[in-house]
């Protein structure tokens, strides 16, 4: 019996035809979860007593799925992969998870992540390093590391992620799957543990564009508990994937794709970019025009710093509620100050503390203008630049990262040595968060035997158009539905 490596529509058919029951799927999923836990340490919690449900006309009913551990789930441990919330069991459920529950979807585990979403390596979870199922010496990227690993391993057809910089779309590329972050506010953030509220997005990791459409159709909707959510009742993503190609014109950015811009390029990077241009050719075969555009290199290079300043500033404020006074383990000390300090000193990993220091520094009265406000201005410049592209192009197409999954050992040292141009390539997905743009990563091949991804980003509220283009491009390539067990060969 093996169903969970299939697409949502296929599994739904099997359920309808009584080839398998929901309960059997749940059991299979829990079994696979345990296997993967041994191999990659992808979960904080495996919900062993999860039960199958009756199957309805809803495509998601009866099918197991995973939830990143920074979603608040009633009666189920929700830690954000942090020691500060190591024993925290919420009494309310995130709106988007509730929507899935109402559709009959069955949550079977909570996936491990970089602590509170702050990190892109999957190495800072309080439960330990999360490994890439394609190659356990490599990272999944982060922060939705566990979700990406589990979907790539075929634990279920989809898992929820969150994306503040590239936390869905980078791990998706490293794990050879689809990662979709819709327009800001399409999915309610109520119940998502905040990292940087103006950049945080809920989203999903799947093995196909259509599955991503099906899941987000269910997760989305205006929520009275999230003022930034908007009425999307006229948005039908699944339907959009059924339509003939709607897009006409794409562009890629010369500074991020031209190998000449990276004189010290590794072989992996060379292959990765060469592979990207193969995908560009496929787009042309589909009938899309693809043009090269040029963006000021200084502006592109500023993106990473802008992200650090803004995300750290918001994070230091957003996580100020973690004092161990109301929830979380009560700290020791004779005064409230000592108790709070003890809780936070013991609870947070060094990486987070470093980010808090940066966040506090850039918000200080004497620094705010120079750092925080300037970062906000450059954010607007970048967003305006992209919006300007969307005047002409349906989507921007770009390679994800600088190659396949990085090795767990030694990558920190490598990051320190990266040129600004290389860093700009590695981190350009942040611009999708700056603008709240819908953005999707799909697998587009292999480099060094490991999967790599390509990203498409469109203008706000153009989610239907984006998924339509992504669906047609995906259909041109043989990676749809791939899992790490059933490796498919390069084109």
């Amino acid at each position, binding site marked *: 019996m093996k169903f969970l490596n299939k697409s949502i529509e296929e599994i739904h058919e099997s359920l309808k035809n009584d080839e398998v029951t929901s309960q059997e799927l749940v059991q299979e999923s829990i079994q696979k979860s345990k296997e993967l836990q041994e191999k990659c340490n992808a979960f904080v919690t495996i919900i062993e007593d999860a039960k199958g449900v009756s199957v309805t006309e809803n495509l998601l009913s009866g099918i197991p799925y995973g939830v990143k551990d920074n979603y*608040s789930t009633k009666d189920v441990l929700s830690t954000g992969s942090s020691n500060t919330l190591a024993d925290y069991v919420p009494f309310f459920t995130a709106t988007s998870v509730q929507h899935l529950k109402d559709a009959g979807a069955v949550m079977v585990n909570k996936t491990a992540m970089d602590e509170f979403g702050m990190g892109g390596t999957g190495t800072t979870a309080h439960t330990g390093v999360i490994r890439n199922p394609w190659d356990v010496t490599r990272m999944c990227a982060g922060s939705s590391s566990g979700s990406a690993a589990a979907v790539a391993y075929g634990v279920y057809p989809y898992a929820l992620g969150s994306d503040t910089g590239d936390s869905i779309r980078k791990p998706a590329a490293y794990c050879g799957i689809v990662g979709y972050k819709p327009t800001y506010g399409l999915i309610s*953030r109520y119940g998502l543990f905040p990292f*940087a509220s103006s950049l945080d997005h809920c989203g999903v990791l799947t093995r196909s564009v259509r599955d991503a459409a099906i899941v987000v159709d269910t997760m989305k909707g205006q929520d009275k508990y999230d*003022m930034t959510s908007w009425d999307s009742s006229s948005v039908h993503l699944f339907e959009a994937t059924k339509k003939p190609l709607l897009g006409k014109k794409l562009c890629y950015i010369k500074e991020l794709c031209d190998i000449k811009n990276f004189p010290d390029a590794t072989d992996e990077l060379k292959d990765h970019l060469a592979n990207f241009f193969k995908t560009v050719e496929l787009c042309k075969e589909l009938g899309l025009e693809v043009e090269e555009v040029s963006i000021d290199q200084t502006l592109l290079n500023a993106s990473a710093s802008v992200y650090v300043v803004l995300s750290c*500033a918001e994070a230091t404020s957003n996580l*100020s*509620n973690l004092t161990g006074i109301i929830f979380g383990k009560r700290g020791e000390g004779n005064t409230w100050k000592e108790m709070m300090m003890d809780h936070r000193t013991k609870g947070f990993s060094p990486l987070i503390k470093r980010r808090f220091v940066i966040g506090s520094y850039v918000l*200080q009265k004497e620094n705010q203008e120079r750092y*925080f406000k300037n970062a906000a201005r450059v954010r607007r410049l970048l967003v305006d630049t992209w919006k300007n592209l969307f005047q002409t192009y349906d989507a921007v197409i770009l390679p994800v990262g600088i190659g396949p999954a990085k090795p767990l050992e030694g990558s920190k040292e490598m990051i320190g040595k990266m040129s600004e141009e290389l860093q700009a390539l590695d981190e350009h997905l942040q611009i999708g968060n700056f603008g709240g743009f819908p953005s999707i990563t799909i697998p587009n091949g292999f480099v060094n035997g490991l999967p790599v991804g390509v990203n498409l980003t469109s203008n706000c509220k153009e989610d239907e158009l984006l998924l339509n283009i992504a669906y047609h491009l995906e259909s041109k390539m043989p990676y749809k539905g791939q899992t790490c067990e059933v490796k498919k060969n390069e084109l």
Partner: protein
Amino acid sequence: MNYKAVIGLEMHCELKSNSKVFSSAKNGYSEIPNEFVRPVDMAFPGSLPVVNKKCVKDALKMSLALNCTQPEYMYFDRKNYYYPDLPKGYQITQMESPVGINGKTIIELNGKEIPVYIHDIHLEEDAASLDHYYSTSCIDYNRAGVPLLELVTEPCLSSADEAVAFLEHMRSIYQFCDVSEGDTKKGQIRCDVNVSIMEEDDKEFGTRVEIKNVNSFGGVHDAIEYEIKRQSTLKREGRYNEVEQETRRWDEETQSTIHMRSKVDAVDYKYFVEPNIPKYKITKEWLEEIKKEIPELPLECKHKYMEKYGLSDYDASVIIKEKDYVDYYEECLSLGIDAKTGSNWLTTQILGEINHEEISLKDFYVTPKLLKQIVDATKEGTISSKQAKEIFLKSCTEKKEPKSYMSQENAQISDENELNQIVGSIMERSQTQIEQYKNGKTNLFDYFVGQVMKETRGKANPVLTKEIITKYLNS
């Protein structure tokens, strides 16, 4: 010699609303701790603020009432600091774009009108309340998230009396606009006070001292007086350099201000825009709509009562003290009760009665409509003014319409024919007394009046009765 005092106030006032300012929990006062709490009030991870539009509207109403300039967009800022009563680790407030800036209002003190300039007025959330015990403290989150309007004046007040007059003036504006109960006993109004002193002809302000968390108007008065005295003494003794820019607190017990922290220890609140609340455009149409809901404010009412209705300064001042009084009085006027008569009833009988019963005028049985029954009957002469008062009191205690005490049986007899008959029959059986009267025993006049009253059980119109008796005796 005396120095000139320069005083600025920060006044926090809790607003009335069904739910809290960023939460759907009830905004109310409860003896039971933690009764009105939603996840966001205790900052559970993943909870988000949602703005209560009614609170924004009321804040704008006050901004308009205080002649402030309103911003184009409504948005909020985070004020970041750690304290056990602050669940999120930040307070949602307004720093960059308050709901009102550069306002002005006129207060009255000892018959003099004084302008007070408003630096800004902004909407924010209250913190939880702390109860301290011997070795522990308890946190009650009922108050966390209650809407607060903070008003900051320019340093334009010059005495404790002015400061208190301003606070009373503001409280009545809040009540008149129906945005707050303004009850200091429930802690709904709390103040910070800034005080400095300077020579009469100094161009620059002296060193400013802030006194935090003064929770009663009396406290504000005493804290200012104390601080002026403290600073003046130091200045007189040539030790003015000992006055430092600091934050102090008012200690009720010792009736003095106590050092809390120096300027160098000032907290950097690291303000930045609250990202979870989208910017909201304040349209001109909306402002116009809100403006229409602002009633006549106390001082406007006072001027009207004195100029249009000829009330005395004293009476007009009494009526504008509370919104309830003005409402009652305005209803009297609209029912056609004479302005002075209405004012007399209100300021003497009615206020006396509600003070005696310790109830609010809103709950008072004799409404303007019922009062009108008494006033009309008095005007028509159906009852005497003495009877009017009696009927009023009876009506108050027995909770029955005044009319019911004015039935045919109880009504005053003012009909001349009827009284003529009564007096006539008494005179017929009192020939002896008439003789004696005519022979010089004039004090028997009262005997005749007494007889008439006895016969009518006191209902005879006394003036008319006397007239008729005089006529008989002289005929």
